[in-house]
């Protein structure tokens, strides 16, 4: 992973070092070409299975919503009870989910396929949850430091040294702004 990133970096430096005219020739720059290039660079659409799954999740949730709403009582149109409005919304969502299952069965062009890089987002989410769990217990400093380090070193491909230095600097800056200057009551260790 690391080697790939550094290679990418050096390639980038090489391109930026080229004279401006050469770069211009190499790149597609008219609006049409640019649009085509964006299209090519864009991720693949999520596809039919993702469409079916997401529609089924929506359908399931909206049925649950309808059941819970009925539990609250629907009342009559003239005197609606607490459950009437959520019931109507859930019903609309359920109908739309069924429509999406049928219309979108070929997959459509929206959404994005999950890739190997999607793990990065999952790891990012895990570190955020970890921070929420740890912050009330040991303050924000250590969880923030960990988050910065993980995001830079493994999710961002920084080197050990720069990731360590920047993480410490960032947490120190946040301490200075949020605790020392603004005096907020964020749970802290020091």
């Amino acid at each position, binding site marked *: 992973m690391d080697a790939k990133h550094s290679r*990418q970096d050096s390639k*980038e*430096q090489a391109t*930026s070092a080229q004279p*401006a005219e050469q*770069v*211009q020739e190499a*790149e597609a*720059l*008219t*609006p049409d070409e*640019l649009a085509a290039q964006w299209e090519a*660079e864009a991720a693949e659409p*999520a596809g039919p299975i*993702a*469409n079916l799954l*997401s529609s089924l999740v*929506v359908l399931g949730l*909206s049925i649950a919503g309808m059941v*819970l709403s009925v539990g609250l009582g629907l009342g*009559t*149109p*003239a*005197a609606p*009870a*607490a459950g009437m409005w*959520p019931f109507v*919304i*859930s019903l*609309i*969502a359920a109908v*739309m989910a069924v*429509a*999406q299952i049928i*219309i*979108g069965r070929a997959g459509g062009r*929206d*959404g*994005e396929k*999950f890739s190997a890089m*999607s793990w*990065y*987002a999952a790891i*990012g*989410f895990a570190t*955020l949850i970890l*921070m*929420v769990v740890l912050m*009330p217990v040991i303050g924000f400093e250590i969880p923030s430091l960990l*988050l*910065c380090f993980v995001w*830079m070193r493994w999710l*961002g491909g*920084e080197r050990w040294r720069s990731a360590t230095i*920047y993480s410490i600097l*960032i947490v120190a800056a946040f301490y200075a702004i*949020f605790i020392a200057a603004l005096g*907020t*009551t*964020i749970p802290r260790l020091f």
Partner: protein
Amino acid sequence: MEFFGPVLDGFNVVLDPTNLLYCLLGVVVGMLIGVLPGLGPAATIAILLPMTYGVEPVTAIIMLAGIFYGAQYGGTITSVLLRLPGEASSVVTVFDGYVMAKQGRAGAALGIAAIGSFFGATVSIIGLTFLAPLVASFALDFGPPEYTALAMLGILLVATISGGTKIKAIIAAAAGLFLATIGRDGFTGAERFTFGNLSLADGIDFVPIAMGLFGLGEILYNLEERHRAATAPVKVSNVWPKGKDIKEASGAIGRGSVLGFFLGILPGGGATIASLASYAMEKKTAKDPSRFGRGAIEGVAGPESANNAAATSSFIPLLTLGIPANATMAIIFGALLIQGITPGPQLINDDPQLFWGVVNSMYIGNILLLIMSIPLIGVFVKILRVRAAILAPITALITMLGAYTIRNSMFDVLLVVLFGAIGYLMKKFGFEPGPLVLAFVLGSLLESNLRRSLLVLEGDPTGFFTRPISATLLVLFVFVAIWPVIKSAIDKRKTSSTTSAVVADKEKENA
């Protein structure tokens, strides 16, 4: 004079040194966050919402206006220097702006964009000053049925005009409406969907939803996305546009401003349509259209003026009817509600000082933007040179710690993280977060007005059609709802007549 009295009073409010300082702070921070690749205006405002807490309402709103314009311009900067449009409305800026930057005219492009934005917004604010009181006085007679119809139409328009699948956008809107029902029911006092959780009894706050879906959702998405296309920013040498540039662009700025103002009033995607329309218009009226896409300054000046004019005039439906026209306005609406201000037809008469304070803060926000943007361009280029790997945890920490400071609640932070994950997944599965947030903001207004109408109309839904305004709005609603079906039917008939058209259609599908 009677009319201008409150308008001028509004200037006194805005010119107060404290307010000016906060506006300046808003512009600078808005630009700093807005310039980060992948974060558009909606994300920027959402992330910075906690900053406006604990500040006086008028000051907070003035700061918001600053953040709004700063964030808007931040997207322009990335369009020109990185070829990464911060949002849909600055996509066309890329066409000529990035080419200009490659030709060593990045400064001219950014400078003319700032000047154009300033002009566009100013034209719009002047238009708003005269038009807003008119619309507000018209809307004063609105009762619950009219508001019900208006809110429904507003949500539907935003859901159907936004890009992507319409059905999915409507599902997202339904999810937003449902989330708004969580908590105590205002009519019966029954607790809805709280599952005994005390933190949910008062309902879910707007801020964690906006910060999660727009802010953290984008940040998580960028963790994955940024490995795909990373370009180094173009060097910026000369910062000021030359006299010749300004002369060339002046016509485009004027046309773009007027066009943007009118297109911005329409709900849903006003700024995007305005920038596209302006680009097309400039290309059409130009003596030599082939220059476009090769660094024509009009191609930057026109769309940038138009999108800022539209962004500003989309405040009209928000401030006079209380209906936000797009996702960014929905966030501003939420921010105003937090300050205890309910935008609507009464605002202009009940609290003229505040209303005109808000309007005039836009002038100040714009002037500050114009003054700050040009000297700060060097700073932005430096920020863009910082690797995304280092910027990402900074924005994540700002969001997390900012969310905590709102109510000193870890539960809020947890909500932000959870909605961040939902926002990320929505993006992956093709659901737009915009309609969800907009529907959430309008949810309680829609429900309470619908229930009040039903009480007034004694449970007879046809009663909506006996009142002229609500009837018109509902007819429009039905038309917008079934329009895609009609359109696809017409398209089908057309394409089935000629084989070549079918082939073309297939090609489009496969593309």
